[in-house]
């Protein structure tokens, strides 16, 4: 089997990339999805707050997904469900598997990686204690409650204040569970402020910052967990232990881009994001392989995922039509002084659009500071920011005209500086 552009994953990123590639004139597109429907994680995100940027209205996750699914159907973009990719070669030959056809190969001219991310598991968190039933990732609980109509438990403690954890604190409360506390290891929340307000404060659920789980009690089923305060090195402080009786522990401790397939095919990964290193066209080091959405770096807003995926789709379309200039070296983009990473990692002034959005996260909470952009050693922009926090993605825009004026640059640096 052959195709022009193979898109791995039929969630928000894959769908928006497919629609953009088709609208850019590529006929031959195939979306490969392992679940039983398109839409990805949006299907279980039944809360509202999606689409304010893209559609100028407030939608729930399934409604947002449906807009793109309808568009993809309307454009007659082919997709395969229940189909899992087991390998992608550097030559863009994709080995896939499904029930109907067994194992087979798809040869693609371009590949868009849109596999999304997964949750950090208990094993990766090193929580001591027994291994009873009743410990779930927040996303697993979300799928049970919202899509399968099953409640994971009645008395709940949540570790980690990521957005899914906050949203599940509210959801479980509404469904009759008693959510006792949300504990967060860091001195700040990992989720959006609006979710602290409407998911915790609205229901008087306490958020304990600088706290973690140090013991899980129960052999068959969770019976309780012990929380303790941690010091500035995130070590539990003896004497601060508090025991909570509960039957369920939800974990919302970070998301990790799912890049096993990418690294197998030789795509270079950024150790900070665990996502591919990409240039301004969202192309990886493997020519004709693009990445977008949560597989590239974890987003807070699906609207930004759709925008990013559109760019990947358009560039993949230009690539298969032979209209994308060969990638040059590009100017390296660097994050410094609190800016943890940048997406993209390089900008080629030949290939970039008039405006290039650069997205990144900061490493700590910064108040009343400035976001500064340097061309080599020269500061070209200084924007005051009241608050920047790791839980909220930041962005700056680079202008092609300004970069061309500046001539040959060694680097572009984004830094946080005091006012």
């Amino acid at each position, binding site marked *: 089997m052959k195709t022009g552009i193979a898109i791995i994953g039929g969630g928000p990123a894959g769908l928006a990339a497919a629609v953009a590639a088709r609208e850019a004139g590529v006929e031959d597109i195939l979306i490969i999805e392992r679940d039983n429907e398109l839409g990805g994680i949006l299907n279980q995100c039944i809360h509202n707050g999606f689409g304010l940027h893209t559609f100028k209205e407030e939608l729930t996750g399934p409604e947002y997904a449906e807009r793109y699914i309808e568009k993809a159907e309307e454009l007659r973009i082919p997709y395969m469900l229940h189909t899992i990719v087991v390998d992608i070669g550097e030559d863009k030959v994709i080995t896939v598997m499904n029930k109907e056809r067994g194992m087979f190969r798809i040869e693609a001219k371009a590949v868009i990686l849109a596999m999304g991310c997964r949750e950090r598991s208990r094993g990766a968190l090193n929580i001591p204690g027994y291994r009873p039933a009743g410990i779930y990732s927040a996303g697993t609980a979300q799928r049970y409650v919202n899509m399968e109509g099953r409640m994971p438990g009645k008395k709940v403690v949540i570790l980690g204040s990521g957005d899914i954890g906050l949203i599940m604190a509210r959801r479980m409360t509404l469904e009759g569970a008693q959510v006792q506390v949300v504990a967060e290891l860091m001195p700040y929340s990992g989720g959006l402020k*609006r979710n602290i307000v409407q998911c915790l404060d609205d229901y008087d659920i306490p958020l304990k910052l600088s706290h973690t789980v140090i013991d899980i009690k129960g052999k068959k089923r969770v019976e309780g967990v012990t929380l303790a305060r941690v010091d500035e090195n995130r070590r539990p402080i003896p004497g601060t232990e508090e025991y909570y009786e509960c039957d369920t522990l939800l974990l919302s401790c970070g998301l990790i881009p799912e890049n096993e397939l990418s690294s197998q095919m030789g795509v270079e990964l950024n150790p900070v994001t665990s996502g591919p290193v990409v240039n301004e066209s969202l192309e990886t080091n493997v020519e004709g392989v693009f990445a977008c959405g949560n597989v590239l770096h974890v987003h807070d807003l699906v609207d930004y995922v759709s925008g990013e995926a559109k760019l990947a789709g358009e560039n993949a379309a230009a690539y298969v039509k032979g209209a994308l200039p060969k990638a040059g070296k590009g100017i390296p983009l660097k994050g410094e002084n609190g800016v943890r990473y940048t997406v993209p990692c390089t900008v080629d002034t030949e290939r970039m659009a008039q405006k290039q959005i650069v997205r990144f996260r900061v490493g700590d909470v910064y108040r009343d500071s400035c976001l500064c952009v340097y061309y080599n050693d020269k500061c070209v922009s200084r924007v005051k920011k009241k608050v920047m926090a790791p839980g909220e993605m930041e962005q700056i825009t680079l202008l092609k005209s300004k970069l061309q004026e500046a001539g040959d640059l060694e680097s572009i640096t984004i830094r946080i500086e005091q006012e």
Partner: protein
Amino acid sequence: MKMKTKELVCIGCPLGCNLKVEVSEDGAMEVTGNTCPRGADYARKELTDPRRIVTSSVKVQGGHLPCVSVKTETDIPKDKIFDCVRALKDVVLTAPVEIGMVVAEDVAGTGVRVIATKKIDKA
């Protein structure tokens, strides 16, 4: 005139603007810190008549999934949230379900309808 100051975080969109509301004695409010008009609306409502959109899921028979997600068509008073979710507990729909299909009229006496937010095909 005496002023009362209240600080809020806007929940209108993921930006989460820090709002400052100055309430004068006659009840007039001045909102600052908002980036868009929704912020000012939210602050006024939050201090006088706090409301939320409620989302939940209800059972479906004969569909490709056992549940369908639903939402209140507009926001409802905050103190009616639990009544709303309780009223949806016993609702059972039959597939197919279309987006926008009315699941409950006048939920918990709020005058607001609850509608489906996902398409459920016949299994």
